[in-house]
């Protein structure tokens, strides 16, 4: 780091572990049935096609088995009947923080969102339980034709764009949890960037769970039209409850010819959240999609961002950091589906397992025989902090055809006692030494995050390491 970096502003966000008493005007009750779906559709006053889409999705969800044949048995512990599927006070986000109810506003202030918005964001959406309470974008972007609204507003106000792509990148039946999301989705972002428009500053969404026994099911759809560029960042937190909370999002990205989308996630869920998210992008000719993903916290995260490289020379990238502490399982990875000539993909994944934490990498790279000039590079490195920590790697690489190339590297390393002793001899406590080692391990990836997020990331890693020693 240079001196310039040191003088940077320190985004001090207190940890997400606090919550205010709940009060909800709209509550779909506990458990999931067709009546739940109707309730959600009613309060949102949705068009018939969406109601029908939801009901069909619920049937798919109910008919699909849990993916426990290959995934974690812990999924069996989700009790769908005990979860509340929709909690909100209003279906309309305000455009001004002043109009956000006090306790909700205080929540986001503690998380530093309004401050960040003033400093470096082009637009912010703040979701509290099922609905966004605040949504705003710099006026100039609206004038250029950029759309940044919630999913409900998107499907109602911009059906011509919305309908064309919604559910096309990730079909309802992709997996049990994409079906669940399709049945009860609420909130999330709908973004459209017109041809040639390049956003200089990121758009950000913040997903906050405040209620217990609750499921958050946001749905995000981003369409970057030809030659446009956008960076979207999402942050998420929830307080610690005794009972399990479910977060199951579906995120679809469409990068049309020559467009660039960067999707940055810094997730810091509390340790009781099941985080089961489906994220996929379609990259058309010469388009570029980058998923930059950091998974900290949660009880179980299953997330494998993917890119379908549909057009010639499309590029896809997944850069991910996962940190699994005691009682946590980060099951993450990437999917790169090459479907055109000269497409390239790059996957770099680093995981850290602390205590009895467990991290799993699952990669899928698919290059069919008829394609030419495709390239994939996959690197996955795991760092184990304690002898009880665990990591597994499951790369599935199917590459056919002679004109294509893949490169795969994997490593597992451990923080050595001598390394810690050396740092302690210089005056750092054991926890500080651990933190520094871990930060060093992910350092090259942290640089891929926007500055404001990398500072936050470092702080989160420090916090996780504090509890990991003596």
């Amino acid at each position, binding site marked *: *780091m*240079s*001196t310039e970096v*040191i*003088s940077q502003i320190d985004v001090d966000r207190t940890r997400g572990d606090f919550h205010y008493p709940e009060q909800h005007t709209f509550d779909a009750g506990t458990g999931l049935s067709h009546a739940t779906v109707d309730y959600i559709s009613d309060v949102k006053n949705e068009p018939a096609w969406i109601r029908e889409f939801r009901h069909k999705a619920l049937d798919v969800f109910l008919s699909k088995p849990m993916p426990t044949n290959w995934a974690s048995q812990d999924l069996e512990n989700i009790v769908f009947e005990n979860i509340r599927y929709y909690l909100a006070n209003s279906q309309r986000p305000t455009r001004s923080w002043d109009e956000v109810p006090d306790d909700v506003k205080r929540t986001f202030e503690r998380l530093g969102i309004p401050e960040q918005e003033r400093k470096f964001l082009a637009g912010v959406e703040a979701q509290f339980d099922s609905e966004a309470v605040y949504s705003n974008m710099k006026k100039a972007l609206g004038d250029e034709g950029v759309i940044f609204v919630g999913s409900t507003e998107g499907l109602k106000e911009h059906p011509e764009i919305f309908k064309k792509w919604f559910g096309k990148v990730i079909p309802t039946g992709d997996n049990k949890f994409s079906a669940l999301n399709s049945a009860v989705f609420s909130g999330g972002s709908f973004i459209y960037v017109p041809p040639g428009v390049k956003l200089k500053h990121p758009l950000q969404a913040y997903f906050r769970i405040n209620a217990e026994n609750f499921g958050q099911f946001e749905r995000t759809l981003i369409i970057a039209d030809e030659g446009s560029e956008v960076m979207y960042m999402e942050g998420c937190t929830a307080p610690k409850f005794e009972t399990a909370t479910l977060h199951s999002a579906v995120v679809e990205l469409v990068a049309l010819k020559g467009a660039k989308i960067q999707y940055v996630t810094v997730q810091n869920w509390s340790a009781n959240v099941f985080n089961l998210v489906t994220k996929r992008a379609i990259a058309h000719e010469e388009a570029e999609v980058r998923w930059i993903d950091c998974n900290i916290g949660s009880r179980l995260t299953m997330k494998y961002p993917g890119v379908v490289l549909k057009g010639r020379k499309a590029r896809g990238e997944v850069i991910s950091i996962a940190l699994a502490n005691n009682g946590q399982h980060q099951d993450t990875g990437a999917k790169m589906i090459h479907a055109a000539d000269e497409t390239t993909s790059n996957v770099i994944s680093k995981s850290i397992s602390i205590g009895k934490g467990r991290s799993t990498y699952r990669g899928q790279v698919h290059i069919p025989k008829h394609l030419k000039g495709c390239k994939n590079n996959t690197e996955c490195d795991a760092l184990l902090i304690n002898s009880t920590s665990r990591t597994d790697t499951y790369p599935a690489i199917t590459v056919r055809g002679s004109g294509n190339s893949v490169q795969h590297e994997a490593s597992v390393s451990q923080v*050595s*006692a*001598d*390394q810690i*002793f*050396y*740092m*302690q*001899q*210089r*005056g*750092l*406590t*054991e926890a*500080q*030494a651990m933190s*520094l*080692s871990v*930060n*060093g*391990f*992910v*350092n*090259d990836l942290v640089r891929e995050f926007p500055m404001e997020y990398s500072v936050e990331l470092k702080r989160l890693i420090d916090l996780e390491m504090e509890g990991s020693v003596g």
Partner: protein
Amino acid sequence: MSLVIQNLHARVVGGQEILRGLNLEIEKGRVHAIMGPNGSGKSTLSKIIAGHPDYEVTSGEVLLDGTNILPLSPDARARAGLFLAFQYPVEIPGVSNANFIRAARQARLAEGEELDAVDYYGELYKEMDSLEIPRSFTARSVNEGFSGGEKKRNEVLQMAMLQPSYAILDETDSGLDIDALKIVAAGVNAQRSSNVGMLVITHYQRLLDYITPDVVHVLVGGRIVRTAGPELAHELESKGYDWIREDLAESASA
């Protein structure tokens, strides 16, 4: 004011005894040298003083300005003013030298106190210049891919930046060519003062031509067996360690 090692017995945790009743006093302002054959326990002594978890002290004390530091964690000992220049410095991938030394400096400040970055870099560059370390070094990961000589220079740089009251230098000469040795020795000599006591560990007398010790000790079999002035180093150089061993055997049988 001194670092006192009193009748120190120590062993590898659950294993062989390495130090067998070692006595030593390093006064502030003085430079002591320890010489000894390979495997005599020199590095182990330095690591035990610094608190390495591989070893356990079975009896004896280590007093830093009168306080027994043996109950303290390695980092607390370091912050109390103890510094060890390692014989084999450890690599820390992804952590830049500048950040590492900065973190070590920050660790010495009171809670809530922040290091002044401008002052810090000013000082760092000055010390790097005197050790002839190029600026590009600040961004490189700690000891990663360093040559033996670069690692040793880095140890001396850290010592200069951390200003210990007692410094142990374990074979800081090994792996250095003569030019590098001169630079490193000059760096160490520049830090000699009435505020610091030094213990220079070396296998060869060569280093002591450049860092002249006040006292020379010989360590054999986990004990100090001889203590004299700098001339002892020369005697050892010409006669070899066998001379000491024979001498010891004679006096034992007498």
